[in-house]
């Protein structure tokens, strides 16, 4: 699963893979439009629904946060 998430991230925002900080949005690594694309691909790949309440900077602060979000949604 993690590998697939990283592939999706790489496709839309390669910089996100190298990023080691804790706020990709504020640091200009990823923008709101890229997040939409990433969310769309994650939903399709893992057949999950990512509710709008989860699409906040906190859950997209770095790749680890994105992986954790998908894991959480798949366990629900």
């Amino acid at each position: 699963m993690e590998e697939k998430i990283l592939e999706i991230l790489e496709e839309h925002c390669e910089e996100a893979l190298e990023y080691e900080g804790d706020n990709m949005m504020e640091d200009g690594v990823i923008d709101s439009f890229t997040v939409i694309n990433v969310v769309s691909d994650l939903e399709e790949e893992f057949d999950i629904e990512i509710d709008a309440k989860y699409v906040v900077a906190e859950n997209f602060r770095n790749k680890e946060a994105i992986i954790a979000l998908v894991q959480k949604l798949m366990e629900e």
Partner: protein
Amino acid sequence: MASTTLFRKVVVLGYGKVTGEVLQYVYDRQAEYGYELVFIEHEVHALSVTEKICRDNGIPFHRIPDKKELARFLDQIGEKALLVSASNNFLFPASLVEKAHITIINFHNALLPAYPGRNAPTWAIYKGEERTGITWHYVTAGVDEGNIIVQKECRITEDMKAYELTQCLMDLAAEAFRESFADILAECARTREQEFDQGRHMYRSSEVPADGRLDLADRPERIYRILRSVDYGKNAIFPPMWTVIDGREAEILRYRKISEDKCKEGEGLVYLPLDNGEVLKIKYRYMDDKTGLT
């Protein structure tokens, strides 16, 4: 030679990407012109970066979600001021617009006078336009009626979704703003009046393409166009599209154009063949069964 302007204050209002770019540019020019800069966030956006730009650069940040409070705040501006409405749905009161010391410019995400009002990218896609664009215009008491300062065009590609078009338009808007800002500050921008057709339609936020309902017997190309036109990702600009399947109302969860070999049997899935040999995959759930996916 130092650049000059009679504006003593510049107020930026809005949310989202274009507002961030406009705000940053106005801040970068501040020392050159000497105006006071203020930012107002009226509508909150979950992924907005404007608060950080303000924090990093010491720009006064005001979050004013209430319309009346915002009107009062703006009404108290006493000095000659330029209000930049970057991506903003607040309608400026006529009493403010008509003040001699207040100048307001607004970004509209269509080529005015076409598609005035709300959600212009949606309507441009829905109507099958091949081109659209952006307009910066002066604000008058009428909605999206003021003189045009600058316009830029872009193409609507065949798979473009509303959020992708919005992104293109925001990039164009930021570029056009940077190109025009000096003339606006110098009050020498060459403008032109809009020419309105009779029966000009003002799009309202309550209007939804196809009234929000898909007819799965419709041409798949049209269904795809409707879905793309309302697709702003997780930004709930419109209620979810719905349709009727086996006599039950079903909410559309997501859609995607795929190649035929990727079609897989599954619950809650409909595949519609497109003329080009690809397939429109639609994921749905019955509206009387919202506890889980069908």
